[in-house]
């Protein structure tokens, strides 16, 4: 996935722009060759990453931006979502599907990302912010629920 073909989208932290990020992700997914169902899944995963970047990462401060980088490759598309916050540890979060959590109002974003992308990686970029990498592969089997249950793709690499 050569970086020279990357498309970048930079947004101020305003939840009304989540829609735009979702739409761009869906279009880029289709342009990369995903069918419309897979492109929607990618859009939904990106939507969750962007909501978190705006709400948790940048605490809705519109002067703090969220940067999305879309890189197309022959085997799929990779999207990075970078905020300006102080990061978090994705492994220390409660399971939103556990009986004691299922009626909570929040806590399902990572579950959705993992269900709708083929790969989800978390990295804290020192002095910069949290970076979530989402990968959607061409011709990959639709892995809605299965992927979310085997949670091994949520690899944390704090560098």
């Amino acid at each position, binding site marked *: 996935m050569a970086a020279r073909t990357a498309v970048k989208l930079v947004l101020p932290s305003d939840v*009304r722009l989540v829609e735009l990020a979702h739409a761009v992700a869906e279009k880029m997914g289709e342009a990369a060759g995903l069918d419309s169902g897979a492109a929607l899944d990618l859009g939904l995963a990106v939507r969750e990453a962007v*909501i978190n970047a705006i709400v948790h990462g940048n605490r809705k401060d519109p002067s703090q931006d969220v940067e999305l980088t879309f890189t197309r490759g022959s085997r799929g598309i990779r999207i990075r979502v970078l905020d300006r916050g102080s990061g978090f540890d994705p492994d220390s979060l409660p399971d939103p599907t556990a009986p004691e959590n*299922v*009626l*909570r*109002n929040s806590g399902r974003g990572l*579950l*959705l990302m993992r269900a709708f992308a083929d790969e989800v990686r978390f990295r804290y970029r020192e002095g910069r912010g949290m970076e979530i990498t989402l990968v959607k592969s061409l011709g990959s089997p639709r892995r*809605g*629920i299965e992927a979310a249950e085997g949670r091994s793709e949520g690899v944390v690499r704090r560098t």
Partner: protein
Amino acid sequence: MKTAIRQSGDVAVVDLSGKITIGEGDVILRDRVHALLEEGKKRILLNLEKVSYMDSAGIGELVACYKRAREKGGTVKLLRPSGKVQDLLQLTKLEEVFETFDSENEALASF
């Protein structure tokens, strides 16, 4: 998202169409359900047939509506979730929480 409310016997049926997502659909859903509960309408059936998808904010609002109705002695049930919405209910294990129907008549009879 758009909504239309019909009264069928003592059940308020809310026909939703569009997406239940952050900053728009979620707010509309909350407003509609809160207004019904304020008016004392405690039996609420959300018709999800024309809802294409929800995000985590929309799902959270659905749960919040469910809890608020319960606090007021009411119930929220679901009618005909579309493919993606059904996937989301299953993924989040909310299908075990919400009573969900394919037939409107059965749904109405169940209250």
